């Protein structure tokens, strides 16, 4: 924005002022060399992006109160054997029986109430994520209208709460273990064992300052749905009698068994919804079987909806305890296909070499990075960017972020499937001690997490790129936009000496408002973008059709809409001078505003979007002009323009990316629809970005390319 101002100031400076202010002169220089500046800035922006793995800093624990690992673990083998007994009881139940789920819940509740903690059931109806055009813009609580769904499917979570003996009960720490009560799964039983071992220890300790909630989430309808609905009920009490009555009547009709069971245990199990204080942090614990690992590993998943991340301190604590206390290998997800790219390795070698040369010149300069580190970092960074850009939570922890609770999913995978009880106990001991340590650290917190970063990208479990660093690359990438917009605007609105009217007449010319017609066009195309983004809501209502059919209907309707718009707004007048410059200027300004907004909402989307849109917008120039010019430069530009506008079309871009990652073998038109459906089902802002910024700007670029000037 500043550049625009500067440059407009420059444009406004009347010629009789010999020496404008320095800032104005700087603006004039920048604008008159906008081509050079934009090439330099864009290149620097892309280079800065590839330097990010090198610029990553080691994580450190920023909040002093956390003090991870300062206390020795109190977990004993008794806790573990008790936990194993519970796991055996759970798995020994016949999984085929219809009421096995209820029986398992009863067993679990029995064990919990034997510990002397409060136990409760939480019944919920899993909500299907549905696209609602307004949910993007409304505040969190308005999307919670309870629909009168069918009563046939519901889930029941088991919740145990330990009240901190000497605290006022205003804060709580949440442990979540997803568990499918209907099925027998050894790994889920293992996670229950770990959870129970920690929970039984915590029910005895005296140092608790926060209540502990253990949520055994019924995962038969998905892990996320059960956790999300429990959180909703926890945070938003239902006061209106009608809706709660509706839900209850549902359960009464269908779940006689459970009611009977509750009447048996009435003394210990409360029927109402139990709450503790505000949540300081939440840990989701999962155990998975992954074949072919060299050691026990811990995978950390942190991305919540729209690229939100938990406070970095939480990841730091887990990482510190897992690596330095329990000797687990900590992993974050990475793009394996990046490791196969040759040019990344070459780039890594080059950077390594440069770092070495710099180090030999001056030992103080230590920015070298070994090639494998660089490639690993790039792969992790790419995954981190991709996950954040999708805006889809990577696990049940995402539900917590919607209520401003920091949460991560810890996925522990043992080296082998343990058959030996001793080895198995040792694995449980290590995992449980990790959880215990994290809980103990969080328990020390005086305030909620605030010290460390919320905006960062991970390049390895112990390395991160903070917002201050990655924003530089982005800023460099988008900086040419206002500059070029301003220079185009000035060019298009230069006073034309030939058409100047007689001086002595009062001429009201609306020349400075000429951009309005361009703005009208841009507005029309963006309105079309809104129309296209809303279409899937209606298309998805069509019964019995495949994703491929959906995509084809969507595509044809959108094209039809565009054609209609074109026919309505088509002007038969001869194109005026400076028309396409004005149009390009307005388009670039809109792209700039859109990217700026998106970088605040979800940085990763904006970064990836800028990589495509910035060159597309900057290079766009009517093909007619280039063809008329017929020089090497213009042919190069034509080639670039055609290539970029081909790739920038969202479906093409999607399939190209998919092909690069997974090979161009089997492509299905429906896949794009399925992918977008997942975006809108999770209310990802990326969907809005694609529909309302990317697609209209792509159309406008195309329009400029085909402009008849």
């Amino acid at each position, binding site marked *: *924005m500043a550049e*625009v*101002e500067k440059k*407009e100031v420059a*444009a*406004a400076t009347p010629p009789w002022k010999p020496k404008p202010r320095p800032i104005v002169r700087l603006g004039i220089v920048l604008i008159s060399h906008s081509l050079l500046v934009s090439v330099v800035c864009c290149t620097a922006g892309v280079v800065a992006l590839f330097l990010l793995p090198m610029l990553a800093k080691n994580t450190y624990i920023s909040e002093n109160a956390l003090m991870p690992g300062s206390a020795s673990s109190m977990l004993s083998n008794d806790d573990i054997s008790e936990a194993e007994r519970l796991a055996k009881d759970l798995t020994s139940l016949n999984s085929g029986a219809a009421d096995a789920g209820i029986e398992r819940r009863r067993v679990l509740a029995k064990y919990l109430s034997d510990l002397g903690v409060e136990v409760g059931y939480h019944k919920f109806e899993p909500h299907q994520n549905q696209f609602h055009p*307004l*949910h*993007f*813009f*409304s*505040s*969190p609580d*308005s*999307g919670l209208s309870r629909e009168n769904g069918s009563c046939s499917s519901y889930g029941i979570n088991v919740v145990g709460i330990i009240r901190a003996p000497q605290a006022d009960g205003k804060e709580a720490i949440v442990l979540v273990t997803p568990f499918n009560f209907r099925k027998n799964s050894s790994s889920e039983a293992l996670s229950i064992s770990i959870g129970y071992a920690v929970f039984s220890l915590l029910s005895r300790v005296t140092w608790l300052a926060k209540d502990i909630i253990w949520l055994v989430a019924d995962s038969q309808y998905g892990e996320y749905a059960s956790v999300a609905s429990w959180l909703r009920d926890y945070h938003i009490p239902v006061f209106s009698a009608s809706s709660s009555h509706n839900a209850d009547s549902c359960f009464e009709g269908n779940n006689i068994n459970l009611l009977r069971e509750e009447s048996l245990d009435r003394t210990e199990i409360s029927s109402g919804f139990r709450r503790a204080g505000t949540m300081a942090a939440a840990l989701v614990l999962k155990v998975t079987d992954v074949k072919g690992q060299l050691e026990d590993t811990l995978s950390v998943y942190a991305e919540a909806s729209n690229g*939100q991340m938990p406070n970095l301190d939480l990841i730091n604590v887990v990482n510190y305890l897992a690596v330095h206390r329990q000797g687990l290998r900590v992993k974050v997800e990475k793009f394996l296909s990046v490791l196969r790219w040759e040019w990344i390795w070459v780039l890594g070698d080059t950077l390594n070499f440069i770092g070495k040369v710099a180090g030999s010149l001056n030992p103080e300069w230590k920015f070298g990075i070994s090639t494998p580190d660089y490639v690993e970092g790039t792969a992790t960074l790419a995954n981190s960017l991709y996950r954040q850009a999708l805006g889809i939570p990577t696990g049940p922890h995402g539900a917590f972020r919607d209520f*401003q609770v920091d949460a991560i999913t810890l996925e522990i995978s043992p080296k082998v499937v343990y058959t030996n009880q001793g080895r198995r106990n040792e694995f449980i001991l290590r995992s449980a001690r990790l959880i215990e340590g994290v809980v103990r650290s969080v328990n020390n917190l005086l305030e909620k997490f605030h010290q460390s970063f*919320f*905006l960062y990208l991970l390049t390895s479990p112990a390395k991160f790129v903070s917002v201050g660093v990655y924003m530089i690359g982005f800023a460099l990438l988008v900086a040419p936009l206002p500059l070029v917009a301003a220079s185009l*605007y000035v060019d298009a609105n230069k006073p034309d000496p030939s058409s100047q*009217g007689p001086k*002595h*007449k*009062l*001429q*009201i*010319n*609306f020349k*400075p*408002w000429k*951009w*309005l*017609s361009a*703005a*009208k066009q*841009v*507005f029309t195309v*963006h*309105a079309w973008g*809104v129309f296209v983004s809303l279409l899937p809501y209606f298309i998805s209502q069509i019964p019995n059709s495949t994703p491929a059919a959906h995509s084809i209907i969507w595509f044809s309707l959108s094209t039809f809409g565009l054609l209609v718009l074109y026919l309505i707004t088509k002007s038969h007048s001869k194109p005026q001078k400076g028309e396409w410059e004005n149009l390009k*200027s*307005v388009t670039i*300004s*809109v792209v700039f*505003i859109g990217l*700026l*907004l998106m970088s*605040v*909402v979800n940085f990763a989307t904006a970064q990836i979007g800028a990589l495509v849109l910035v060159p597309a917008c900057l290079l766009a120039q009517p093909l007619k002009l280039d063809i008329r010019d017929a020089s090497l430069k213009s042919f190069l530009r034509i080639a670039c323009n055609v290539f970029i506008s081909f790739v920038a079309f969202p479906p093409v871009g999607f399939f190209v990316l998919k092909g690069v990652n997974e090979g161009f073998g089997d492509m299905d038109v429906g896949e794009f629809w399925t992918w977008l459906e997942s975006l809108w089902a999770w209310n990802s802002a990326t969907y809005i970005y694609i529909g309302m910024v990317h697609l209209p700007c792509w159309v406008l670029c195309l329009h400029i390319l085909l402009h008849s000037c």
Partner: protein
Amino acid sequence: MPTANTEEENSKSELQKNHGGGGGFTRWAVVAVIFRLALIYFPGNLNLSSRPEVSTPLTSIRRLAEGYWLKQSSMSPYAGSMYHGSPLLLSVLGPLTVKRIEGQPSHILCSLVFVLADLISSILIRATGRKLQIAYRKSLKSLNLLNKSTDSGALSSGDIAALVYLWNPFTIVACVGLSTSPVENLFTILTLYGAATGLAPLAAFGWVMATHLSLYPAILIIPVNLSYSGSWFYPPAPLSPEYTYAPPSKLFRSKEHGKVGDGKSSQEIIFSWRRVFHLLVWTSLWSVYVLVLCSISVKQHGSLQEMFQRTYGFILTVEDLSPNIGVLWYFFAEVFDFFRDFFLIVFHSNILFMILPLAIRLKHRPCFLAFVYIAISSMLKSYPSVGDSALYLGLLGLFLDELADMQFSFFLFCGYVGVSLLSPVMHNLWIWRGTGNANFYYATAMAYACFQIVLVVESVSSMLNHDRKLTKLSTSKLQK
């Protein structure tokens, strides 16, 4: 807010498209009203009435409903620092807030009142624009500057201003978001209309009501007086064309010297003290009337003194520091308590300091002066909302002919669009996500203030340039 971008572009594109006369205006006004009604009937998912950009402590309908409830339960409506508006508004809108029609969104009646207020405002703006344009033409004619090329009969600035007001997303959001600013704006516009048409009672009534509702329009008394008493741009009586004004009076003098034998009276433009007195009498009459009504309204549970404390006092002492799009809340949240009074005086006198110089420089264009005052006060007022911006952006359209050469129009447009989209996102980042903080949101408020400053500075300088151009042209004609 997400549609703000599109609508603003729409409204601006009106500028170009709508060259058709009255028919075009009526059609677009009807569409605007239908659009508002559609938004009102929309499922209440937008939650506009709780947005800080739309409803301030002074204009929120929820607070008004609370005040009405307090009053109904025999308490002072001002108890508990909830309501800070006028008791008259409470009496008029209060009963409407509790009326529910089965199957309709709540507050439907209030919404209809606001839609009506918007419609009337736009009609008044259009009428004011007509008057201004006639005066402008006359003055051009008197300077022999009116030629065919300037006589762009199809393009009426009044129509455009009215449509800009109606279709401005800020106006729409303020209206649909149930803030009382449409009513406040209506009275401000009524003042200007009264002054432009030379109806002293109407101008005085509008001024008294606008001041009563939101205090800041009090400074409009100067342009109203200039406009009414000086008859600068519209002669209430058939005086000689020289009176009608446009360019600075110097020009007329030189012109008089040039053609002495013209037979026309060589009077200067006179500031008529008789007319000032006339206006003041009406003003005091209406003030007394409004005060009596207020005292009747608050008599049972409070006093006039309490009313002044809770309305004007609340505005002047900036008690409520909840975030809004203005610049004062953050400052007074940070400032040490013992400096508070000092800075209160500094900030409020900021507006007052600008009154006199502007009045001297722009005295020949009272309506434009009023626009500048409104823009400045909506920038520096203690609880600004988008409704205030809607008012001055609408009035800006009135000076289309004069401001045609304005610089930075594109830059300002982008700035307004960008800030109005960025501000809710920053608010969300701070309040809901917790990853941002107050500085993020305040940064957009400062950017917004900067854009407003640029707008005011640019419009004033291009208006003065326009006047200079007129002077130059007419003197060159005289010399021929």
